[in-house]
């Protein structure tokens, strides 16, 4: 039954055109941004490396991943498909588990594809342009970037489950990730505890306190907190 719940949720996502468009859009964004970063680095004469270019593209790619994470739960409330979903699978916990698994799958695929595409683009672009190459940063950071994007996507999913509306969840996640977090980081060192700042230690070793091990734990605590609120609301309250 659990497998069928996941299969049903994946089927819904497969037949939702906006999911396919978002996946394609995210990968295209990754390619364009990686190429643009390489070209602007070459134009400015700033030395860089393939891994460095890919990591610099992550903040842009995360916008697409956020949409991808918001869609599985959000689209159910864009209209009343949620009612149909719960008629088909009245066990709310199982329904939510299936949906979360499907969301994790689509977000993971999106993250891996876009980082892969950015890597391929950066590798080609560094050969085509006359970019000065520096020694490559540890390639495991690319895996870290994929994990970071997956965490951000799951956070978007948790917010969408908790908020139960597509556009408000999207705006909330986008504002937090690209406006509030950078503004707060400029104001106070405590901004490191925000979920995206903490999770970014997976690929961007920039923080004095959090490391690549503890940063993700902070982000997971956020994920657990928001996810618990969303799950309680989903399981206990009227849909």
């Amino acid at each position, binding site marked *: 039954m659990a497998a069928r719940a996941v299969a049903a949720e994946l089927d819904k996502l497969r037949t939702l055109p906006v999911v396919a468009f978002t996946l394609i859009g995210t990968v295209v964004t990754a390619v364009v941004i990686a190429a643009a970063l390489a070209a602007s680095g070459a*134009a400015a004469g700033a030395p860089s490396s393939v891994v460095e270019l890919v990591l610099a593209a992550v903040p842009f790619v995360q916008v697409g991943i956020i949409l991808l994470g918001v869609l599985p739960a959000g689209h159910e409330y864009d*209209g009343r498909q949620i009612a149909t979903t719960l008629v088909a699978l009245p066990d709310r916990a199982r329904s939510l588990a299936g949906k979360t698994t499907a969301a994790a799958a689509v977000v993971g695929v999106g993250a891996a594809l876009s980082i892969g595409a950015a890597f391929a683009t950066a590798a080609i672009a560094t050969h085509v342009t006359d970019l000065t190459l520096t020694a490559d940063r540890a390639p495991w950071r690319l895996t870290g970037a994929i994990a970071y994007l997956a965490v951000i996507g799951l956070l978007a999913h948790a917010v969408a489950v908790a908020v139960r509306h*597509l556009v408000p969840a999207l*705006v909330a996640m986008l*504002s937090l990730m690209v406006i509030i977090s950078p*503004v707060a980081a400029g104001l106070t060192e405590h901004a490191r505890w925000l979920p995206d700042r903490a999770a970014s230690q997976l690929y961007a070793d920039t923080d004095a306190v959090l490391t690549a091990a503890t940063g993700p734990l902070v982000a997971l605590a956020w994920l657990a907190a928001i996810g618990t609120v969303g799950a309680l609301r989903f399981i206990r309250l009227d849909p």
Partner: protein
Amino acid sequence: MSTGGLLAAELRKTVTLPAAWAGIAVAVLGSIAITVLNALTTRSAIDAGTPERVANTSAFETAFAAMPLGTVGAVVLGVVVISSEYAANSTDAGGGRQITATLAAIPRRVSLLAAKATVLVLLVTAVAALTLPATAGIANAVIGGAATETVTPAQALVRGLGGTLYWTLTGLIAAAVTLLTRSGLIAPIVLIANSSVVSVSLLLTNLTPLAHWLPDLAGRRLFTGVDTVEGGLAAGPGALVMTAWTVLLLTVAAVVFRRRDA
């Protein structure tokens, strides 16, 4: 329907939308929260004798740093004014869209769009009239005489009006894009992401100077003082270019709206 009645109807529809109030809350309360945080940081830096720790100790600059949140609020308002018309109702209630009722009541589509744009301008201006004095007042109260104000009242007024213009134009662009796509997804993504540090337009300026003519970058000098990259258009021409973009997008949206099926 008279012009006054049309405006009143659109205003009432908008202010009864919870999402519109969410947008207003982001702009007003979010800006106030950021300003409080920023002002307290600045004040403690001054008191500790290390004012170089913060970018600027001026109370007005401290308040003005919260401006990006107002842009988010304006985008949300611009999107919901249009997207609420196209959101499908609950299937229990027939699954209809409000746009059909709206167009039955007011079939003159360009007038309808003009009324919506007017309501949006009014709301964004009201939000700015509330937010800017509130944040400037808070920053002044917290920082007070501890630092010298480097911005004269006249400059503060001009920059406040410039910021308001930027918010308004961004809101109108959001409304035009939402009307063209009939979806509330594209405009927030493009406009919110681009108004942040994760700006594709900003990246494009490294590749071609033409990117300075994109609407968000053309208008950014309206926020003079907020950290931006060098180059590009000055405040006056930039505002004109951004206004031209807004008019262009609204015109295209109006033509499409008039010609296609609702």
